[in-house]
């Protein structure tokens, strides 16, 4: 999964897009060298020392990993559980929707 996410982050580097992780590893010290090895550059919340039983994943009803939520620029959930190409597609659609909305707003000024 890392390669796919790396390429998504790279491809959309100059777009209004962010990949945010919620990491559920229990041991941060063990995880840290892996971040540079795998070039995991995106920011993550830490789910805490309980790992997969941590508070964020619990609250978000997550019982499988990875779990994906996609939000638009207003913070509205627009897709869930999308992986691979489906994730790319959902993101691209929301980015173009956002661009359209903003150019529409400019014209309306």
């Amino acid at each position: 999964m890392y390669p796919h996410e790396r390429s998504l982050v790279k491809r959309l580097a100059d777009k209004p897009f962010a990949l945010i992780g919620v990491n559920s590893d229990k041991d941060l010290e063990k995880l840290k060298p892996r971040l540079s090895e795998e070039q995991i550059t995106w920011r993550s919340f830490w789910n805490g020392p309980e790992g997969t039983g941590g508070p964020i994943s619990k609250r978000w009803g997550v019982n499988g990993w990875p779990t994906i939520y996609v939000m638009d620029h207003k913070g509205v959930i627009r897709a869930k559980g999308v992986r691979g190409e489906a994730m790319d597609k959902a993101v691209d659609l929301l980015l173009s929707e956002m661009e359209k909305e903003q150019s529409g707003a400019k014209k309306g000024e």
Partner: protein
Amino acid sequence: MNPRLLFGAALCFGLVAPPQLLRAQEDVAALEKEYQTAVASFQAKLAELRNAGKSREEIAAFGQANNPAKDFVARFQAGAKAHAGKEAAIPYLLWLGQNAARAVAMSNAGGAPGAAPSIADDAWVTLLRDHAASDQIGRAVQTVGRMGRTLGGEKVRSMLTNVIEKNPSEAIVVEARFARASTVLGDEEASDDARAMAKADFQAVMASKAVPALAQRAEGQLFVLQNLQIGMTAPDIEANDLDGVAFKLSDYRGKVVVLDFWGDW
């Protein structure tokens, strides 16, 4: 007191299984024993072939032709069919649900892909549909509850509704309400009515003391239903990043965000 009356009363209160169910349970246990014997002798023959240095192809061909699983699955299916609709079908259906997938997969090098799980799925569906009032359907409730994607959420919900209306066991009704409500979470086509019903179901499960473990899960699922559905504004997250620096999900308003629950394992 008349012993037959006593037996009848015990039957009414679910204290003893009815004789036809008992007999079917014995028949299934005997068939299961026969199956285990057949599997053991089949595996011994495979080992013999391996020890004799036969090629992988030869062993596979022997396995496909001689694996007892398909034959036994068919016999359990015949038993379920012979008693269809009656309580005596229940032990056969339970066996098929629990074992058919594994049994057929084991022998299935040449079989139709997907056939094995569907035999097990069919057994669970039949169990739920024909035996909605039985005390043996706990696992069928859970398994069919997760089949929304293949069977359609509406269909699964209507089968569970039937259980909720007919089953005298509070524990099974609670399981069924939890399962019925859970189907709505992954179902973008669920109607507003189905969503309202899901909310009431989760609340009922939380209020019931019949299945404490589910009461806790229901609370979490209710939050998902009310806050984490497509079209809803995501609840904020405020926590530390991996370097111990606090930040918020809402810091990223104005950007399209993929929130990725991950772990390095």
